[in-house]
């Protein structure tokens, strides 16, 4: 479900794998994703979108039952601009799931040369069905 949000589909992204707390996603280079017209580098917001989607997918795949999740925070280090014309791939790992919170780490790379573009750490809120008292 996390793999098919309207926004991620709109920017041409796809979650290619999500299993046991690990997820992989990919996004193709496209002209309308450019953030710097002089260099053709993709906008940071596209990388943020990839990482948020990917981290969410990793969390969902780590849960025993599907639960609503929401990003609490996301911190990104931009190591290197994405290469013009190259697809970006990302992977994320859910490190820990508690009753309320899930902790995730992720990264994004140029598909062609595997150079790391960005690293991220994120925390997600989990919404478990509330225990009802009569």
């Amino acid at each position, binding site marked *: 479900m996390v793999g098919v*949000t*309207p*926004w*991620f589909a*709109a*920017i041409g992204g796809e979650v290619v794998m999500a299993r046991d707390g690990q997820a992989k996603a990919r996004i193709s280079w496209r*002209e*309308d*994703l*450019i*953030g*710097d*017209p*002089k260099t053709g580098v*993709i*906008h*940071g*917001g*596209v990388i*943020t*979108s*990839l*990482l*948020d*989607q990917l981290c*969410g997918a990793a969390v969902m795949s780590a849960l025993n039952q599907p639960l*609503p999740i*929401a*990003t*609490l*925070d*996301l*911190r*990104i*280090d*931009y190591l290197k*601009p994405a290469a013009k014309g190259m697809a970006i791939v990302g992977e994320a790992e859910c490190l820990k799931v508690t009753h309320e919170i899930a902790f995730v780490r992720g990264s994004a790379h140029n598909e062609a040369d595997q150079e790391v573009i960005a690293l991220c750490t994120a925390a997600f809120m989990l919404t478990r069905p509330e225990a009802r008292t009569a």
Partner: protein
Amino acid sequence: MNAAALAQEELLNSIPFCRWMGIRVLQDDDGVILELPFAQKLIGNPLLPALHGGVIGALLETAALAQVVHELACAELPKPVDMAIDYLRSGRALASYARARIVKRGRRTVNVHAQMWQEDEARPIAALRGHVLLQR
């Protein structure tokens, strides 16, 4: 619109991703505001519905960069170094707004904060804290 708002509008119109998202420039007495009109493609959770976290990050980051370019009269777009985004409330299917301010200008890096809201600026839906590297 004053010169500051016009300059930011020209900058954002030159960036394909900002045009594609539909980001617009507004102004009030406190300065420049970016507006993101609601569109179905911005949705991350169709059940609520809620804006995608990446959309929120993209608007905040754009506001931060545009503010730095404008306030420091940068000839080149600064490069983002790191960004920390706090998601405070769910982004609803409404128009969103963002405003950024420079907290500290160093010789090479700038610390910038940005906030995003929908109906009430006093009830932000997200906040960004980041560093950008000035290009020379």
